[in-house]
């Protein structure tokens, strides 16, 4: 019995070490893509990344974090290419020379959801800013991401444009991803700002209805950017560019256009490669 146990343990060790060695022999061309949770949570990257890997032979490591962190990673040279959705922040990094060649990829939109009985009476309101103002005035509960993500950045910009500094017990900062934040808003019967894709993905669990949509300020624009080789020593410049080119190629844009129709009955993203920001959403 003891011999059997010993043999088993030794066999296990040999297997484990062998498998680590096998892991060490991965493909040479690794790319680190830093991106937002929404591209990952919606499932879009599960479709696009394998397609890219097959076309080019690169192996992609997708790191999905908040847009704020995704940009910092790239600016420090800890990623090769960025796919995020915070135009004003992105432009700052491009202006500083940390990120290069910003190209629009796709957009979807944000919506404001909230309690069915709508205590702030925003359902009839078309303007997102007016809606936020009346949420603040009635001190109706509002859940914010509070994590410097793309969604959080848009929300902050909207409050600023509305001339409000959100503060108080009604303003709840979750500090978590979109999925978790939707869950909190649902449990607390509160208003929140969400991208439509994540909202649709969680439709089964989140009973809060959409109250405000279609305002142009609620557009959610995704761009891809390459990382300046000067940011660090190990940046895979060619690989990063290959992925950025892939995202705006006509073939990929077609895939993006049809993504989600099967599962949600509507597509989650609108491809916009080659367009300018001003032309979008008219």
């Amino acid at each position, binding site marked *: 019995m003891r011999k059997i146990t010993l043999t088993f343990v030794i066999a296990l060790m040999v297997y484990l070490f062998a498998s680590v060695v096998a*892991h060490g022999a991965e493909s040479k061309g690794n790319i680190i893509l830093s991106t937002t949770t929404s591209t990952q*949570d919606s*499932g879009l990257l599960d479709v696009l990344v394998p397609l890219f890997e097959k076309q080019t032979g690169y192996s992609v*490591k*997708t*790191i999905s974090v908040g847009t704020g962190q995704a940009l910092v990673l790239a600016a420090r*040279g*800890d990623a090769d290419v960025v796919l995020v959705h915070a135009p004003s922040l992105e432009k700052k990094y491009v202006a500083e020379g940390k990120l290069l060649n910003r190209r629009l990829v796709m957009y979807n939109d944000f919506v404001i959801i909230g309690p069915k009985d709508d205590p702030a009476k925003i359902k009839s309101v078309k303007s997102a800013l007016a809606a936020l103002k009346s949420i603040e005035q009635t001190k109706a509960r509002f859940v914010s991401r509070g994590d410097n993500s793309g969604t959080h950045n848009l929300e902050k910009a909207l409050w600023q444009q509305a001339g409000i500094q959100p503060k108080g017990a009604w303003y709840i900062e979750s500090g978590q991803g979109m999925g*978790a934040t939707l869950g909190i808003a649902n449990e607390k019967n509160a208003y929140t700002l969400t991208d439509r894709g994540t909202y649709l993905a969680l439709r089964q669990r989140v009973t809060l209805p959409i109250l405000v949509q279609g305002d142009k300020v609620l557009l959610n624009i995704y761009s891809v950017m390459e990382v300046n080789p000067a940011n*660090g020593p190990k940046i895979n410049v060619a690989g990063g560019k290959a992925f950025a080119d892939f995202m705006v190629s006509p073939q990929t844009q077609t895939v993006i256009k049809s993504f989600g129709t099967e599962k949600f009955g509507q597509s989650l993203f609108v491809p916009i490669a080659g367009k300018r920001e001003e032309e979008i959403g008219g």
Partner: protein
Amino acid sequence: MQLIWEGTVKAFELVFGGNAEVWQITGLSLKISGIATLVSLLLGIPLGIALAMTRFPGRALAVASINTGMGLPPVVVGLFASIFLWRSGALGFLELIYTPTAMIIAQVIIAFPIIAGLTMASFQSLNPNLGLQLLGIGASKPQLLWLLCKEARLPLLAAVMAGFGGVISEVGASMMVGGNVRGQTRVLTTATVLETGKGNFDIAIALSLILLALSFALNFVLTHIQQREQLRWPKLS
């Protein structure tokens, strides 16, 4: 409750329906945490024995550090390991960030103090005279160590279980240094976080159940070995 039932059904579907990704994720979890535990044993047992059997200046400090290390929060380990392993970090040239190796390193930092601490405790619970006796009947130094290890094997097995249990179930460090990359560094715990974020609660529950079952199976085997060796207490009544 409905949700837990759906998750249980889903777990059976995923495991027995031949879902390749779930098997791959489960295998990777076992591999990474298994290797991390083995490495931690190789480092932790000698250190624990040394701390238990020797006296040197600064020993109290070393013991207190190990005892603190037994409760290291995985996210703290993950944060510092990331800072070192990022390309911009001091060890960035190794290109280990977002690899299974990086996860093993982080998990060793978590498990090794647990194993060292429990080893130390189990050796300290041995009667010191036992060592003298064994030397007296002519045991060599290596023989002595081996015999003492055998004597302390029951608590040592507890150390293995605690170490493995600690790393297979942690998510903070694995998420940060591994990055939850599909097919490369996605393990049961990080996949559970992801699926919860996606709103796929049934899959998240299924993954949790697989993790629990694994943990239980392993502990069952180790407990069996441990308890088989336990001396029987006489009836006390």
